[in-house]
């Protein structure tokens, strides 16, 4: 019996050593860089010279799925003159809430480079269900650092809720955003706000892939009176 136990122990010891060795071998194997068979680039001749100008190569002519909102919501920002972090050098701030948002110069308001915002004071707190924004859609481009915030604090120091943020590298210093950049098209960008209560709405941008300048065309706030 002792011999059997010894044999069993010896067997177990050997098995353990073998097992440990195989684990060590596996570990050693898993640390080897995976060699992938990646396809090489293809040399290419002179590409086609795409036409310039507004709305070239729109990615999609299909309107995005509409955001669901309660019945009776209205654009409570209509006609309310916006304020901004810097004065525009082209156009008036009133254009941002005048209901006109065609892809023409007369409906655009341009600001200098850097991170800048426009803000609308709704006059009172509203239950905001959707915010629609149009930046510069005179040309197909993607604005950088599109950040949309609401608050009851006019200075946006307290009680700030960020509804949209595609500042993925935090270059505007308001936090790393995980929302996507998108192309400025005639559809604008509609952000669902889910009835959040706020009086002030602020939208930031920081230039685009085409220009360091900022440009707004329209900001609409669809809301119901706060109960």
């Amino acid at each position: 019996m002792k011999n059997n136990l010894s044999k069993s122990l010896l067997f177990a010891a050997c098995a353990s050593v073998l097992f440990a060795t195989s684990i060590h071998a596996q570990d050693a194997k898993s640390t080897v860089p995976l060699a992938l068979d990646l396809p090489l680039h293809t040399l290419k001749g002179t590409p086609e010279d795409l036409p310039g100008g507004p709305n070239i190569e729109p990615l999609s002519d299909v309107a995005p799925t509409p955001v669901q909102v309660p019945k009776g919501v209205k654009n409570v920002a209509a006609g309310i003159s916006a304020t901004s972090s810097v004065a525009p050098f082209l156009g008036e701030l009133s254009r941002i809430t005048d209901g006109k948002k065609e892809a023409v110069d007369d409906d655009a308001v341009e600001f200098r480079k850097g991170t800048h915002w426009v803000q609308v004071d709704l006059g009172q707190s509203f239950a905001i269900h959707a915010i629609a924004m149009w930046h510069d859609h005179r040309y197909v481009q993607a604005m950088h650092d599109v950040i949309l915030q609401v608050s009851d604090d006019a200075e946006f120091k307290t009680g700030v809720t960020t509804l949209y943020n595609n500042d993925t590298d935090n270059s505007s210093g308001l936090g790393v955003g995980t929302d996507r950049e998108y192309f400025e098209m005639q559809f604008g960008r509609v952000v669902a706000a889910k009835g959040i209560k706020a009086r002030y709405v602020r939208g930031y941008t920081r230039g685009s892939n085409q220009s360091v300048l900022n440009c707004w065309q329209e900001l609409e706030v669809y809301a119901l009176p706060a109960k």
Partner: protein
Amino acid sequence: MNRWSALALLLAIAGALALRVPNLATRPLHNDEAVNAVKVSELWQHGRYAYDPDEYHGPTLHYASLPFLWLSGAHNSDELDDATLRLAPVAFGVGLIFLLLLFADGLGRPALAWAAIFIAVSPAMAFYSRYFIHEMLLVFFTALTLGAGWRYSQTRLARWAAISGVGLGLMFTTKETFVITLAAMGLAGIVTAWWTLPQPRRVQSLLALWNWKHAALALGATFVIWLLLFSSFFTNFAGLLDSALTYLPWLKRAGGHSPHIHPWSFYLERLAWFHPAKSPVWSEGLILVLAAVGAVVSLVGYCPSPINGERAGVRGENKFGLAQPAVLHRFLALYTIILTALYSAISYKTPWCLLNFYLGMILLAGIGAATLVEFFRARSLKAVMIAVLLGLTLQLSWQAWRANFVYPADRRNPYVYAQTVPDFLNLAQRIEGIARVAPAGYETIVKTIAPQSDYWPLPWYLRRFQHLGWYEKLPDDPFAPIVVVSAKLNARLDEKSDKKWIMAGYSELRPGNFFELYVELELWKKYVDTLPRDRD
């Protein structure tokens, strides 16, 4: 050459350098430049080059670039910058001015001086001297062939025949379209001879000029260049046959099987009057008008005097019944008209091709300017004419400066074509920045996905990475630490990965052609942590 002509030449060279050398890396590489960069790197680092008859033109650009790469101090392509790549076309663009000296006794000092100045400050000439493509080399070798041919006609020395043959060989090994220039030279030569030689002994006169030994020497020189370069110095003999087979695909393109089909006026409108919306006006009308003047006086056989009298026997009539310079002028006029017509007639057009007939126009513009100054007898009126021409030349210089330093990659520049936009450099720099924080560094896998391989010049800008994958459609497994995807594919890798990958933004490759950058989220956060807070 007198001191005024020498001064004009020196000023032209100084102006040419000022417009060609500074800020060579400002404009991102064009697709074609990046392809050439990859090919020249292969030659430089591994000694490998094989002529491809389907695309990418001849070998001279790559071999001519080697001295600049050797002198750059870079040890490999990772250390090369865009400016170094562009030094070869700069050198040939400036060198073109020196070649005008071959025509000194034919053009005359005043015309030579004006032509030198126009080459220096022409926006088209300056702009494409900063392009790492074959065109400026082709124009240089064309001028060498013509200039050496003219020198031979004046001296009957064998060495000029040989140099002309070398020039022709270098044209052949630079770009397939040299045949168009050759056809124009041949036709212009025949018409000039027929027009100029006296009746009834035209053929006999022509045969009297012919020297079989010199012709064989010239052709032999062409042959040697062809043999050396198309065989990649005897390492790729298939290149010799390919130098002929290449005309099959190129004839198809010339016939319309290409995205570069443009109307006959494509080149001339860029030179004469280019004014898209919200753009300044561009015009090299000064050169075009002077070229027209030069062409008219050349065709009627008028020579502005004084023609350079440094060599005895150049003035006066020769046995052809005309002063020899007038024969050159007539040839240049016919050559330029024929070449302009040929290039305008061919449907396949890319704007840099205009340089080929524009060289002739500039030479004629030199003649035209000299003629206009000569037209006025009174010195005061001559001075006024010179002042007016210099004033207009200054305006042309300002356009050249604008083209190269204000609108170098902007479609409002008439010479910009399918150009990579500066925003794309931001993408390349961002990917480099990510590599610096990635555990695997430049071993990090990067996948690039774009239909029809439309991702150039990214292969050049990502050359430091060791594991690059290039796809024309979304692969079964599109994920990698860094993924660059054409926006047309709507990849949505962030949504597909439950936000384990972040879509870090759009970058524009060319107008309307966008790419999305996807980065594995944790890697992206590491990268963001390295970015400075205040980035205004």
